[in-house]
């Protein structure tokens, strides 16, 4: 409240501040002094000093050649690696969403065999490190040396060496996609469970089969609960793609390692890669926010933008400076 308005209020005759007993029900307007928070300033200052010191050390380190960072930001190999990272993320997440939905419906079906298979899948793929799964798929030829579909000897179907198909990129997509499916299955299942049972019953009572009720009535409504966590998964998968550098899948981190293994500017190139990952996650976050707002998620608990909240909580401003009280 600005002071002119306060003055106007204070000037109003029904609120003239006087001492002594006042008639019941009369009100007066008094100034509110906000509480001060000295510890916020002290704590903030210490933390800020530490940050500045850390950043200064890095920025002025004679061992980091910033011109190399600048030189490689738009390097062809790096950009190609980034392109692959994006492709890998999109394909893996798509595989994850589709397979995850199938796994979720299996888990919720009345068929006990499908239920058990789905649970076992989810347990296995969530219970083992992604890094191991990546290396495993890359080396699947050790288990299944030949892939055979149909009956090639009889003239139909085809046969090939596993190693021919299982390139680093295929292994990366398989590993990331199959792993992601296990997480998406739980997300989709949660979404399905969040749809009230009456929706399914109403669909059944109208003659829809179980499958029709699931795909036409329940899943479309489960989407509201599925989209926000899927946005998080997008960011997680994006960063997880860096793990496939162990099988040299040529995505961003592999490209980065390839360069620094020859020029030895390790930290500089890692800074380049980290910078690009941050840009990509930022874009993913914006995308996620857009999707959520499209789905009318008005769960905004914070109404003020960050910079306003920052200043307000330090300075204790933005509250009413005057308040009308009884007596």
């Amino acid at each position: 409240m600005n002071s002119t308005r306060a003055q106007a209020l204070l000037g109003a005759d029904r609120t003239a501040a006087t001492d002594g007993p006042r008639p019941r029900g009369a009100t007066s307007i008094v100034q509110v002094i906000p509480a001060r928070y000295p510890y916020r300033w002290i704590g903030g200052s210490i933390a800020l000093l530490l940050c500045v010191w850390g950043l200064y050390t890095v920025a002025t380190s004679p061992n980091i050649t910033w011109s190399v960072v600048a030189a490689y930001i738009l390097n062809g190999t790096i950009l190609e690696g980034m392109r692959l990272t994006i492709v890998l993320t999109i394909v893996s997440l798509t595989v994850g969403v589709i397979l995850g939905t199938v796994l979720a419906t299996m888990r919720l079906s009345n068929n006990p065999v499908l239920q058990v298979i789905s649970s076992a899948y989810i347990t296995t793929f969530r219970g083992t490190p992604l890094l191991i799964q990546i290396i495993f798929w890359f080396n699947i030829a050790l288990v299944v040396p030949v892939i055979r579909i149909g009956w090639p000897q009889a003239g139909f179907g085809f046969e090939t060496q596993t190693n021919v198909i299982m390139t680093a990129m295929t292994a990366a997509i398989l590993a990331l996609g199959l792993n992601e499916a296990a997480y998406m299955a739980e997300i989709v299942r949660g979404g399905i469970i969040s749809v009230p049972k009456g929706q399914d019953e109403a669909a059944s009572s109208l003659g829809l089969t179980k499958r029709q009720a699931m795909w036409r009535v329940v899943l479309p409504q489960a989407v509201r609960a599925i989209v926000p966590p899927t946005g998080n998964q997008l960011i997680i998968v994006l960063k997880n793609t860096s793990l496939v550098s162990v099988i040299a899948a040529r995505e961003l981190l592999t490209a980065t390692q390839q360069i620094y293994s020859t020029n030895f500017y390790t930290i500089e190139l890692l800074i380049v890669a980290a910078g690009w990952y941050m840009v990509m996650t930022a874009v993913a976050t914006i995308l996620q926010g857009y999707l959520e707002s499209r789905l009318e998620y008005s769960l905004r608990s914070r109404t003020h933008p960050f910079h306003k909240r920052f200043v307000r909580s330090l300075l204790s401003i933005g509250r009413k400076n005057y308040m009308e009280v009884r007596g």
Partner: protein
Amino acid sequence: MILEDAPLILDAFDVHKSYGEHEVLKGITSEVMKGEVVCLLGPSGSGKSTFLRCVNQLEKPDVGSIQINGELIGYERRGDKLFELSDDRLAAQRCMTGMVFQNFNLFGHLNAIENIMLAPRLVLKQDKDETRHEAERLLDQVGLKGRERAYPSQLSGGQQQRVAIARALAMKPQLMLFDEPTSALDPQLVGEVLSVIRGLAETGMSMMIVTHEISFARSVADKVMFMADGVVIEVGPPSQVLDNPQAERTIEFLSEL
């Protein structure tokens, strides 16, 4: 209004249903003739919903037979054997009954007209224009002309329930089942839904209605069935069951209302 020799639309015989140890229906026998309106009364927990849900196979009775319009529900009879129907066949049979729920259960992601059109399009494979035309007529019938594009969240409870009635009617059911259609409504919205149901009765629709609205039951029902603890206590015209009840349970129940 009901002909003496009108065909039986619902013929339920000795229906039993248990959940675990708890026997909820202990042999319900009930008939609805073509064009007849039967109101089902009884204290909460007496098994009224369970019985309706058995009639349209949302629940499977343990014992007993249910025939709708002469067709055995849930089984196929071949000689002296009954073969359980597959889920898809059951789904097809459910079209014979229309169900209206206490909580409306409109599909939240579809607007009013889409709610009505979904099942005729998917299940009956009806032509789109024909279905739309029919859905508009039904919305008009329940007094919601012009609200085609409203989503359930934009409608009052009474309006939602009327869309739900139109949605059930779109499947051209032989028998309409209402499970406490006004219990979730604010008192001032009860009337609009009851008058739609009353209008439906006048068109000759066969109906079984679970309700606690005694005066509505008295005026609309051809037959009142009073249930308690999973058994039918008393059946008869409203003038008999509501105004001159014989069984102690019925007298007690009616006096508490």
